[in-house]
């Protein structure tokens, strides 16, 4: 009877031990960062990831339509050149290889600002859903950086004048609202750079040029 109780006690402790070991390993492997966030931060992360999942679902639906249409044309022995052309136009526009037009905003920057301040502004435009951005006549793509100290800014080896324009295509309402909200990026930059003025004008039509940057990798090999 006593021996049986001992066995039960050891079995119970071993079981709890096992559960805790697994919980410990899982919590460390699965979310090294999430468990360090407050409830408010977690709520914001959830909202952002959820919004992204929505857009990924839309992308999946879009791609499934393209697959179905290509398969259909294939099965009927017909050409799907129109589908290919439209895919190409969308891809080239997104990658920055062709000029694009659409509604958006024009942002006029006057006064002294450093490269990292302009990059903060561009980051906020991307966050607000800007689909294409240009600084003066330079299309901003992956690899484009506005750099330099106040008064000596450059982008893609092009010097920026003292007062310069940033244009972005997207929802003019969302872009304007995000940039100009209280405590937003413009307010923060205004507090950092004395005498800086940034004005945002919503526009029905904004034109963005194609990039002149060579986007074909010279060192990396693509896995097609």
């Amino acid at each position, binding site marked *: 009877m006593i021996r049986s109780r001992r066995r039960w006690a050891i079995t119970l402790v071993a079981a709890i031990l096992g559960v805790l070991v697994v919980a410990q390993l899982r919590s460390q492997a699965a979310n090294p960062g999430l468990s360090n966030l407050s409830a408010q931060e977690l709520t*914001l992360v*959830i909202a952002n990831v959820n919004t992204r999942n929505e857009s990924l679902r839309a992308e999946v639906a879009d791609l499934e339509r393209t697959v179905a249409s290509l398969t259909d044309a294939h099965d009927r022995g017909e050409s799907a050149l129109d589908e290919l052309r439209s895919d190409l136009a969308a891809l080239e526009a*997104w990658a920055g290889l062709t000029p694009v037009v659409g509604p958006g905003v024009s942002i006029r920057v006057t006064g002294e600002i450093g490269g990292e301040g302009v990059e903060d502004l561009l980051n906020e435009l991307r966050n607000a859903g800007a689909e294409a951005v240009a600084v003066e006549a330079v299309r901003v793509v992956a690899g484009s950086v506005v750099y330099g100290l106040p008064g000596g800014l450059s982008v893609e080896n092009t010097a920026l004048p003292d007062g310069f324009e940033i244009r972005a295509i997207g929802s003019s309402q969302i872009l304007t609202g995000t940039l100009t909200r209280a405590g937003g990026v413009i307010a923060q930059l205004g507090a950092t750079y004395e005498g800086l003025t940034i004005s945002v004008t919503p526009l029905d039509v904004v034109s963005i040029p194609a990039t002149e940057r060579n986007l074909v990798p010279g060192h990396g090999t693509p896995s097609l």
Partner: protein
Amino acid sequence: MTAVLARIRALPSWQVTLTGALFVLGFLIAAQLAAEGPRIRYTSQERAPLIETALGLQEQQDALQTRILELRAQIVELEGEEPGSEALVRQINAALEHARIAGGLVQLTGPGIIFRLEDADNPGPERDSLVTARDIRTLVQELWLAGAEAASINSERVTTGTAVLDIGNAILANSAYLAPPYEVRAIGPDDLYERLTTSASFIEFVRSRIEPYGLRLSFSELDAVTVPAYAGTIRSRYGRPDPSAEPVR
């Protein structure tokens, strides 16, 4: 002392086993509680379901991204079998391939550097001892300026539309949650590291941001760094190709 040892020896072996197991149990409970800790310590009751939800959404996100990459591969295959005029199809397919590579929709492997950016060892209450979105953006920008041709942050490819944001103490890129430590990968010329570390702005970043606050920045130079393909949306809702520009083939 000998009396104590003799008393321990006299104990039944199952008691010794149980005591040992209870010690380990105590240690694990303490470790579990410590793992819940900081960046900052919060009560875990309200957060547990939120963490579960966030993890569930992340799993969905991973599955959606995998599906996007599968569908894109399927489309490339179908486009390659297009039965139309051979020369024209070849031309359009070559342009599609070029656009996909240019936009970062294709995984790339080549010589480069992998950086690891971590919070200070014992972060204080101030935000400065934690890695911020701006630190990651600065590192990526410095790599671009040094000649990198492709970059990623954790598993997110840096594309034309990538924003890197602070959400409280969390960091998001392409609206995806990034779990620390942060890993920035870049492919570029063989002298990418030399170019980077001799750049005045990178030296300033290390002097003003990494060193004074104890942030940890380590790196590894490799012959083959793989930068993942972008697995997000590329469809435009507002922009369209400029009709006044040269028509697309």
